[in-house]
């Protein structure tokens, strides 16, 4: 492999072919899992940027006091205007706009499955954009609005965002766990292949040992051989993973909605993915060296 001269006939071992295949598969899976983790991180970031700095104020069509009549549409519009005026007068608020009824109807469409009934008491929604600096006391603002305007409620999306953050975090952790497990499985395969090689070539290794070979010399032989296998397998896994990601990116772009993670990776992320076969090679070589050195310690 690469013109590397081996004193041990490792190239003829059947385990080598399987190891190459296993490393290729591990690189493929690790790259996909890592791409998934990065896509989820991006999604979390998009949620953060999309929703942080925004709040929604609902004005519910409820009575101003127990026993009072339900507000008419004109009264509700007046309440909405009051809220908007209050919001626009609050330092830290950039914009406060009523969400048109047609958009509200669109949001409710999945649940109502059709046209919005006229008699359905739909709350008015006000989309509020905040500067972020200075940080606004949303709790106080919400309390103030609720006291001043009956039925006014401020939703800072905090709970929803926190749930999504947790979900994205868990998914990312699972993806990274998969990467770690794949690494572990790959290293176990290398240990197995090296131990098999040590057993098969025990006589030759004993001969080299008697002739004055250091443990490092023998370990270097195995490491060179494993590096060749890892490079071959890793290259195959890399090509396959890149093709898969490109296909997923193309299909994801067509069917994806805003919530689903799209696989549009930046150049830095691609670079990180391309490092996977290199890391796999380094891990395989280090594991092989460590296994050989550990095993040869039993020799006199």
């Amino acid at each position, binding site marked *: 492999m690469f013109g590397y001269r081996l004193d041990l006939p490792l190239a003829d071992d059947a385990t080598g072919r399987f190891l190459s295949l296993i490393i290729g598969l591990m690189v493929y899976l690790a790259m996909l899992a890592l791409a998934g983790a990065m896509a989820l991180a991006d999604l979390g970031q998009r949620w953060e940027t999309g929703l942080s700095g925004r709040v929604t104020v609902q004005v519910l069509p409820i009575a101003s006091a127990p026993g009072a009549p339900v507000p008419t549409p004109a009264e509700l519009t007046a309440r909405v205007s009051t809220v908007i005026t209050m919001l626009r007068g609050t330092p830290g608020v950039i914009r406060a706009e009523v969400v048109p009824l047609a958009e509200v109807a669109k949001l409710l469409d999945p649940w109502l499955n059709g046209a919005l009934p006229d008699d359905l008491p739909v709350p008015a929604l006000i989309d509020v954009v905040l500067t972020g600096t200075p940080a606004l006391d949303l709790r106080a603002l919400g309390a103030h609005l609720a006291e001043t305007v009956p039925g006014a409620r401020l939703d800072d999306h905090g709970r929803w965002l926190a749930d999504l953050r947790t979900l994205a975090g868990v998914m990312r952790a699972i993806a990274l766990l998969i990467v770690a497990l794949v690494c572990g499985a790959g290293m176990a395969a290398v240990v197995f292949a090296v131990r098999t090689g040590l057993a098969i070539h025990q006589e030759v290794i004993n001969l080299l040992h008697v002739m004055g070979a250091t443990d490092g010399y023998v370990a270097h032989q195995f490491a060179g051989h494993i590096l060749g296998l890892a490079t071959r397998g890793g290259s195959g896994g890399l090509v396959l993973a890149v093709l898969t990601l490109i296909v997923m990116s193309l299909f994801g772009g067509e069917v994806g909605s805003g919530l689903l993670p799209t696989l549009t990776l930046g150049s830095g992320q691609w670079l990180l993915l391309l490092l996977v076969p290199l890391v796999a090679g380094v891990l395989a070589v280090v594991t092989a060296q460590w296994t050989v050195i550990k095993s040869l*310690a039993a020799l006199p």
Partner: protein
Amino acid sequence: MIRFDNVGLRYGNGPEVLRDIAFELPPGSFHFLTGASGAGKSSLLRLMYLGLRPTRGTVILFDQNIAQLPRTALPPIRRRIGVVFQNFRLLDHLSAFDNVALPLRMAGFNEGQILAHVGELLHFVGLGDCLNARPSTLSGGQQQRIAIARSVINRPRLLLADEPTGNLDDGIGMRLIYLFEELNKLGTTVVIASHNQTLIEHFDHPRLHLESSSLRVLPRRGTRMA
């Protein structure tokens, strides 16, 4: 050169295969190691080339107490010992050249030096035309010469041979011992394990004789057979 004091060796929990072995080989000496099959000749040789550590006793090699040295200190000492094995133990996946070059590669010589030294030695032993031949394609005599070339390529101070004439007829065996004598004259200490009585009697060298797991040093007779 070599000193064994009260050395014992047992494999696992078995009985001692070597017991109270004590001898000293001065630098530049030539000894035969004799004894019946199973007497422990190969085990004693393995102790001498550091393929085994004794169960008890002291082994002094090149003025160093082997028992007190860490494992990592042993490879440089092993490189000062040449070993010719009974079945040559050549690596069949390597060419004749690469087999002979092994000790030099392990010692860290560069490829230029290796090319010069190995080529010269293989020409010297008459295998200049077989540099790239695999051992399995060569005759027993040629394989033997490769094995000897491999054992002396790094100019060992101690040369050990385990039944080197075992598979050879007496004529070729004699020539081999003459070759070892030539190396001995250049200063190499030589120990040859053999049970070939004809050869041993032909060459007048002192003997290390193993019997019932114990060793006796038998001096030279003072005459050499014609």
